[in-house]
């Protein structure tokens, strides 16, 4: 799946989009989007950030996926280009899962990576 994603975008699975919408509904938000970013931290050096926000910031790249607006800070985009965001539920599910072609290695839990 990830090999088909062009580097000028990121993909979010339908299930992940639905889950974000569910979280937003629980927070009674009318207008919202999903902020996807990266910051220093985690065991491997860079960790993912997911946040439901009211709207984009000035320097965010905006992508629409399955009726969901996704905001990616331009400085974080170089680390996320070509990424596929999925959601796996169930008792043994990992929750939101990033499949990032830029990641050379990741930590045991998958929450952080290095490039």
């Amino acid at each position, binding site marked *: 799946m990830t090999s088909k994603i062009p580097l000028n975008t990121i993909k979010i699975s339908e299930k992940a989009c639905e889950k974000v919408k569910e979280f937003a509904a629980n927070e009674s938000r009318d207008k919202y989007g999903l902020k996807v970013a990266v910051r*220093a931290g985690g065991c491997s050096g860079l960790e993912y950030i997911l946040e439901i926000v009211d709207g984009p910031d000035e320097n965010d790249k905006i992508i629409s996926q399955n009726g969901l607006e996704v905001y990616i800070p331009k400085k974080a985009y170089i680390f996320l280009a070509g990424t596929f965001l999925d959601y796996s539920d169930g008792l043994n599910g990992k929750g939101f899962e990033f499949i990032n072609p830029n990641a050379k290695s990741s930590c045991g839990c998958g929450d952080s990576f290095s490039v």
Partner: protein
Amino acid sequence: MQNHLVVVGILSQFNMDKQENFLKSLNFPLYNISSELNSYKFSGTDSLSFLDRISTNKIEIFDPKTSSKTILTDNKGSIIDILNYKVLDNSNIIFSLESNNPETINYLKKLIIVEDVEIFEDDVIKKITIYSRKEIIDENNLFSFCFYNINKLRDIIRYEVYFKDNFEINNLSLNEFQNISDSTKELIDIKNNLFEFDTKLKKINPLETGLIDYISFNKGCYVGQEVIARLHNYKKISREIIKFQSNENLIINDAFKSKDNISGKILSVTKDKTEFVGLCLIKKKDVGKISSDFLLI
């Protein structure tokens, strides 16, 4: 890594008395003042969170405000540099680098991606290192300095106090202490298995170099945490610090191999009259092969 292989010989005995006599000849308390060092400031609402996520110590606002060290490690758990820091408030941390190498600042700046953190160069500072046989400085007198650390060693107390160049340091009563040279200071540190981090040192981790006091094992993830936690929990620290003496001026981070096939890495080196002494890391399993605490190279 710029290692070259040095062949070393391990002598069967080392003159421990020489080391002891060296300390006995000194008139404690002693002090040494370093040359100028750079200090910096993290500023911005994410400053504490940022430093907490990239270094080993738990970064929080102290009560009362005091200072500590924290270690920058890479994702393999190897030391990048050591920071002396003080949290001023929710948005500001002052710090200096043990290496005083500006390359570390470039490394830190690259880690700032989307957060509200900026790094500014602050005042020039100096460090006083004081050695005493007993407690001579009330910790309450140290809060006004940039940073300080007190290291209570087996038979000596080592105070490290950083101050701004124009700061009045009279309340430390230095006029009652003996001033020592840089090389004497280094000899005392070597005697106590202490070394100052140099960015030439590669692939060493904080656990094998006696820095465990500056690692939080319950704060959660930071860069390198997975490796450091595993080494600690499974007791997999494979190397140990050993003193060495040599006629040859060895270079920090150099690998060496003895005739008895003991290999290691040079951590620090200084000249003692006509010889060179310092600290090195060797495998723990080889420590028992040495008949004294010292490798003679």
